[in-house]
């Protein structure tokens, strides 16, 4: 019921307020070179995140999807302040939070932005009980007295579907799904405005996965949360997100409402990803192998022009020379491809196609 009501409210309110904004964010890592590479003057920076911009509106879920090494996790670390950006800004409620912050501002920020990570066992302290783990954020931020904290812990454990009997258990006594529930409860105790979910269900078993996804949906409407949902599984992203950003080699290549992405994908990379997802339906078997060439290039040695041109089946000379910009092709639908208009109209660029393979 709650979920339905929240959805109605959302559709009634088209101009949603921006909660989190990422503006032209870059993170370059320096890598060590061998002597041989130095003499050849080989490149030495990994452009993990390269000029990424997006907005997340209050109450919405933005999905970031891409293959390993595309920069999705680095983006979340930059937002959480775990990494310093090389350039660009992270704006939370209009305030720049990417630079140097005072201890108090950083502390306040941590109350508003919380995270849940992929590996629940690795993100819980094995020597603390479930109750202590969930209470710890409140202890650090000194919210209320001990009695009120204990009260919140019990409420949170109940909200995530754990029993009070599990309060005194240690993480290793719980199953993977229960551990992830503890991590979610801990993220919510400070009543954050936004929760960053970095692959929250990929380590879980199939029958547990949907339980956790449904729980996250319920908590979103109950606590009025905004999610940034990072995942590689396109089926999970479709179920959870309102908007999706597809990343490739540190950049967003397509960004649009979820239904547009799955029904009318524009970018050839998005199309290839969608084509490769196994569908649990034997009548939808894909017989023609994906026409994508090669594998992902190294982020140290990023291709010129369009970064996808080395693998794209429609590459022409222009793609090698000129880098396409992420522009709005249709209402709310952004893509970075020179032939986005052609792809949008549904026409296969015949001239391009013939020269491609």
């Amino acid at each position, binding site marked *: 019921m709650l979920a339905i009501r929240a959805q109605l409210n959302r559709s009634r309110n088209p101009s949603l307020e921006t909660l989190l904004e990422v503006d032209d964010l870059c993170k370059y890592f320096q890598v060590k070179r061998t002597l041989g590479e130095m003499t050849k003057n080989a490149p030495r920076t990994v452009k993990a995140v390269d000029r990424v911009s997006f907005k997340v509106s209050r109450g919405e879920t933005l999905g970031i999807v891409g293959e390993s090494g595309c920069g999705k996790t680095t983006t979340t670390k930059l937002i959480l302040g775990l990494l310093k950006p090389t350039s660009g800004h992270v704006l939370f409620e209009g305030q720049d939070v990417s630079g140097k912050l005072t201890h108090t501002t950083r502390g306040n920020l941590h109350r508003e932005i919380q995270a849940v990570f992929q590996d629940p066992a690795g993100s819980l302290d094995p020597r603390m009980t479930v109750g202590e783990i969930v209470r710890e954020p409140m202890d650090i931020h000194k919210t209320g007295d001990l009695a009120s904290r204990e009260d919140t812990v019990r409420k949170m454990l109940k909200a995530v579907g754990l029993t009070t009997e599990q309060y005194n258990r240690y993480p290793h006594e719980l199953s993977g799904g229960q551990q992830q529930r503890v991590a979610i409860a801990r993220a919510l105790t400070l009543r954050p405005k936004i929760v960053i979910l970095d692959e929250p269900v990929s380590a879980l078993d199939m029958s547990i*996965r*949907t339980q956790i996804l449904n729980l996250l949906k319920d908590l979103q409407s109950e606590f009025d949360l905004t999610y940034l949902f990072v995942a590689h599984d396109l*089926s999970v992203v479709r179920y959870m997100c309102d908007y999706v950003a597809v990343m490739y080699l540190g950049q967003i290549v397509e960004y649009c409402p979820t239904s547009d992405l799955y029904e009318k994908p524009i970018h050839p990379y998005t199309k290839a*990803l969608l084509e*490769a*997802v196994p569908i649990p339906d034997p009548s939808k*078997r894909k017989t023609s192998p*994906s026409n994508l060439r090669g*594998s992902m290039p190294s982020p140290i040695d990023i291709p010129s022009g369009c970064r996808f041109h080395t693998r794209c089946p429609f590459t022409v000379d222009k793609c090698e020379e000129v880098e396409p910009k992420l522009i709005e092709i249709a209402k709310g639908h952004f893509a970075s491809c020179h032939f986005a208009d052609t792809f949008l109209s549904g026409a296969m660029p015949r001239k391009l196609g013939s020269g491609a393979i």
Partner: protein
Amino acid sequence: MQDLSVRFYLGAGVVNAVEHLSFNVRRGVSFGIVGESGSGKTVTALTIMGLLARPPGRVDSGTISYDGVDLLKLKDEEMRRIRGKRIAMIYQDPMTSLNPVLRVGFQIAETLIVHEKIVRHQAEAKAIELMESMGIPEAEKRAKEYPHQFSGGMRQRIMIAMALATNPDILIADEPTTALDVITQFHILSLLRELERKRNMTVILITHDLGIVAQVCDEALVMYAGHGMERGSIQDIFTRPKHPYTRGLLESTTRADREVKRLSSIPGTIPDLINPPTGCRFQPRCPVALDRCSKQEPPPFSQDSNGYSKCWQSEPS
């Protein structure tokens, strides 16, 4: 395979990893074993390969007949002649399965030297051919490289080349694409399908991903807590699932091809195999469980020549 039971005898108790499992796989089909962690799918594969760690593992009952021979009764050296030559296996993580200090060409050739008794330079030439047929570009040059110089997808291709060097009858692939990205996964699965067709080979594909089973396999076995819950053709399992567990899994699976507002989920957690639930293993989480289910374990009720469903609801009336 008939009535296979494998138990692990640990300090904490006896783990019933696989219990009374029976199924058969015909030549030239792609057979999927699908299940969650702890369902016994990998233990089943390792038992077929004769690679079960003993102790603590022990095969308490059953037979695995392959070509008229019971693999469980073979002596170690007899099994060694079958393993890798006629039944080959590839694993989830291609990095840890390859030797990091040997060139990949030699690692593939080694299988041929051991099983086919051919000399090294002939074996290495054959290794390059195999790498080419797996779709590895510049095979001759790359055969001289080491595993760390390959991407995950290419490493898995090398594992497959190694497994197929001796033309096995059966290839067991244990979660072969779990460590790979979705596009690479697609290429590896297409390769496996092509090989199965071209070489008339039997592929036993072990996975937790229903999507992969639907895309690749002809027949499948759904396992849960060490039991084979349902076996049938791919069409039957996905369009007419008989067992409540199979139905629950299908209903709770997220899909990229359709928009769903709310999926139903299977309540509860995966059972503890040291103290498994009485009767049917799925009964505590089953939405249609009866009194009888917690008291009496259902036998596999056969559906047609090859299919069965281990559920009292499937009992012919």
